[in-house]
């Protein structure tokens, strides 16, 4: 092989390696299932976003209709401000509600949109007013224990009643 040919091939090899490194570093971050062309953006505020992440799916009736693009903390209301892209072809009524749900018991979290009944549709940039936060297991357990305790010592076994026997309803 000529010297020039070898040099070209080596250059190609090094370039390929660099491309591999860029791919590994960015993890194909450019993979956009929904381009900005055929999608519109809506926002929603949640008291607790749980384990939701950027690029998590947005589903309605279990069908993926969009992606979460960014999650920030709203500094005024101290709520999680979730921005999501929805497919242009899918229009939701303006009084639709958004919930943070979990796929499976331990699976990843996603946003579920439940359509409302209003005639007008969500426009690009609109905010979904009705939201339901992610279920935090600790809060749930705490609530359960509290209720159990509130039922009184007669209903619950003595150990479970120990924390707050005379708790108010």
């Amino acid at each position, binding site marked *: 092989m000529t010297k020039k040919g070898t040099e070209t091939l080596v250059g190609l*090899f090094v370039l390929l390696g660099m491309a*591999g490194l860029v791919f590994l570093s960015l*993890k194909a971050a450019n*993979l956009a299932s929904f381009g900005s062309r055929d999608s519109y953006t809506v926002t929603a505020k949640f008291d607790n976003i749980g384990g939701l992440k950027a690029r998590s*799916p947005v589903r309605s009736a279990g069908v993926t209709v969009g*992606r979460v693009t960014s999650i920030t903390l709203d500094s005024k209301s101290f709520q999680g401000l979730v921005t999501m892209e929805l497919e242009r072809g899918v229009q939701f009524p303006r009084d639709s509600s958004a919930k943070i749900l979990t796929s499976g018991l*331990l699976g990843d979290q996603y946003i579920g949109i439940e359509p409302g009944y209003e005639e007008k549709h969500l426009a690009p940039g609109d905010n979904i007013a009705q939201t339901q936060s992610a279920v935090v297991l600790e809060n749930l357990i705490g609530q359960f224990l509290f209720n159990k305790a509130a039922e009184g010592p007669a209903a619950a076994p003595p150990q479970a009643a120990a924390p707050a026997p005379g708790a108010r309803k």
Partner: protein
Amino acid sequence: MNALALLGARTLGMLRSLGHSAFFFGDMVRAVPASLRRFDLVVTQIHAVGNLSLLIILASGMAVGFVLALQMYYALVTYGATESLGLIVNLSLVRELGPVVAALLFAGRAGTSLTAEIGLMKAGEQIAAMEMMAVDTKSRVLAPRFIGGVVSMPLLAILFSAVGILGAYVVAVLLLGVDAGNFWSIMQSKVDVWRDVGNGVLKSIVFGVICTAVALYQGYETEATPEGVAYATTRTVVISSLSVLCMDFVLTALMFSTG
């Protein structure tokens, strides 16, 4: 008494060869700047060691990615956690399998050819002829090959991991129906560029040094006979593979033990 003397002789012999290889390594590294001035030699070696290993590395990376995705899927589907497939494949490739398997393949594909080439140069007395003409064999023959190996190895390991992840993507997303967004998003949120990718690259550089140095030493110190070259080639594979595996454990313990 005889057994005691044998033990002593063995120990001394081992220490002597260890010191000999350390001096050899030192001489070779010292010859690196001189050989960098003749860069065309290095380019030729990168081609021989890197470019020509590319096919087997890419094919193996793809196969490992395929198989990893399939096996992990069957384990994860029980728990409904198939979204984590991408993360598991990514971490195991970038942290461990990429550098280690690429290094093992590298030892088999490139290390043996280096040993055989230099061993035959020695058997054919080309090395001796060069030294008679006052050509520095360390900077003319060994150092370019050493640089070629050390430069190629990280690139090959990176490509191994990248192709493996793409292979896992093909199986997981296109065949098994894992959500593509989750596949990538969990990776992006959990894999750290410096901690995971950076340490993987660091590992592969260390493995590149080990594999190339072992191959060159075995070739250079071979007995100048056909059996000697055959024996040296075999030893290259055995020693580099074992050192890579041992070193991998040490590096993993150092890099990933905390948290």
